[in-house]
């Protein structure tokens, strides 16, 4: 029932969830920090490489599609609403209350940049969702907020059952003569109301039973231990190190104002003396990890050592 995550035998799937979180969020954070359009395509390629080498292409496809749609949307909307920029490409009509709809080169390029940014972020989230099991993510949550993570675990466990129950309620009420699929919006809505009552009431009854079962197993006693299965391994350090370096390097350089870039009022030249540094850093980080994952899969010696 968990549609996005599947157990696989790759290095990424064997990582500690914290490392995997670092690995997948680094590209997303970089995409947010770096304002220079030059670096994004590289990030994008690196991420796609990561997805490919981790064997999650199929699972990620829906994320990539969504990212692409969002990117297209931004690419289309940005030039229309954005009236800054000096190089006007198309003179649009004049709208009341709004002004002239002019498409500028700067806005167009910014749209491209922002679209790519969205794509990278969504793809990174897809990578995270498909390589870290939700269960491990919950364990991470449990480290700092135990109660909410327990409630969340309970919700995750109950959800599939409730979806099935909702389907069953629909079937049964259809058979009883409730016309759920006919009529206007309003009629359909009214026909659905009793179903909602049914689902709500049985969920509350269930909550009461679960609370009893939890008490029967000693919940609420006070000091509680959290039983962790996964521990850090050398492979975590090997993956985390390059990611930390890339992240730290980029943050340090950007804080010093080295990577800044401005689209408006007029495009600046993306290439400057710091570009090789950023490009090199990103390429190095990505390549290291991709190579590592690739050889882990093929090289038994490496697998057994880390």
């Amino acid at each position, binding site marked *: *029932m*968990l549609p996005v995550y599947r157990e696989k035998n790759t290095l990424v799937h064997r990582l500690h969830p914290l490392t995997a979180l670092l690995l997948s969020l680094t590209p997303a954070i970089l995409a947010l920090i770096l304002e220079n359009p030059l670096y994004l395509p590289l990030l994008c390629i690196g991420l796609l490489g990561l997805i490919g080498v981790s064997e999650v292409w199929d699972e990620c496809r829906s*994320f990539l599609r*969504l990212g692409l749609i969002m990117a297209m949307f931004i690419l289309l909307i940005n030039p*229309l609403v954005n009236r800054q920029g000096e190089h006007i490409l198309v003179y649009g009509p004049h709208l009341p209350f709004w002004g002239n709809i002019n498409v500028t080169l700067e806005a167009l390029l910014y749209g491209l940049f922002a679209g790519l940014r969205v794509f990278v972020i969504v793809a990174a*989230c897809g990578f995270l969702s498909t390589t870290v099991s939700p269960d491990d993510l919950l364990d991470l949550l449990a480290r700092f907020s135990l109660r909410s993570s327990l409630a969340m675990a*309970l919700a995750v466990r109950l*959800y599939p059952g409730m979806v099935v129950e909702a389907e069953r309620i629909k079937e049964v009420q259809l058979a009883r003569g409730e016309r759920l699929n006919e009529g206007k919006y309003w009629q359909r809505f009214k026909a*659905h109301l009793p179903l909602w009552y049914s689902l*709500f009431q049985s969920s509350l009854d269930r909550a009461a039973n679960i609370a009893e079962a939890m008490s029967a197993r000693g919940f609420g006693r006070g000091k509680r231990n959290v039983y962790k299965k996964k521990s850090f391994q050398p492979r975590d350090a090997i993956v985390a190190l390059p990611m930390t370096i890339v992240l730290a390097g980029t943050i340090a350089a950007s804080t010093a104002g080295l990577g800044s870039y401005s689209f408006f009022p007029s495009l600046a030249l993306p290439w400057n003396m710091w570009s090789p540094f950023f490009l090199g850093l990103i390429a190095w980080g990505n390549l290291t990890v991709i190579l590592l994952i690739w050889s882990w899969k093929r090289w038994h010696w490496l697998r057994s050592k880390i």
Partner: protein
Amino acid sequence: MRSLRYILLVLAGLSFILGARGISPFDNWSLNSLFLASSLLAFLFLQFEARGGGSREIAALGTLAAMGAAGRVLFAAIPGLQPATFVAILAGYVMGIETGFMVGALIALLSNFFLGQGPWTPWQMLAWGLSGASGGLLGKIFKEKILILPIVVLAFFWGYLFGWIMNFWFWLSFVRPLNFGTFISACVASAWFDSLHAIGNLFFAAFLSRPVAIMLMRFRKRFQCVYLAEEER
């Protein structure tokens, strides 16, 4: 844990103020907004954690969140209708501000567990959580009474507010320049969806507030364990 909570809050505030004045280490709203939302969320979660709560509370939270997310399946035949906001608001109204917030936040997190997490997750958690918290506030004002009209107004309003919060995130992260005009145009673009959401909420609130609130109140009453020991020999 207590100190961590407040450090988080201070950090969130600092990043906001510095960001707004353009002197933050990241004078970059894409990142700032993410940081703002996550630290605010973390603060609220820790707040909930510190308050504690027994098995009944955890069980209620888990089931309400699962139901808020699964309710969508029930209404699959009607486009644009999903009961999540309504569930969060009502949970808040009857069970209090914190529970409302947590139910809303967990609904968002849960839906995304099954549909896929994304950069929108923290913002959705925040938006739905706040809708639940606002329901809690309303419940505080009206005490034990169930007044339909305020709930209906609130639910309708949250249809738009939810959209605007999500737009706000989108606008901060991906739209430049950041000015009033671009934000408004983002809202205009999403107006259709937001209206659908708001009307759905309106219907839910108008027709279901009373029965659902009564059910929740009955449930809450079962929470209160009254123990009268009588020792007669």
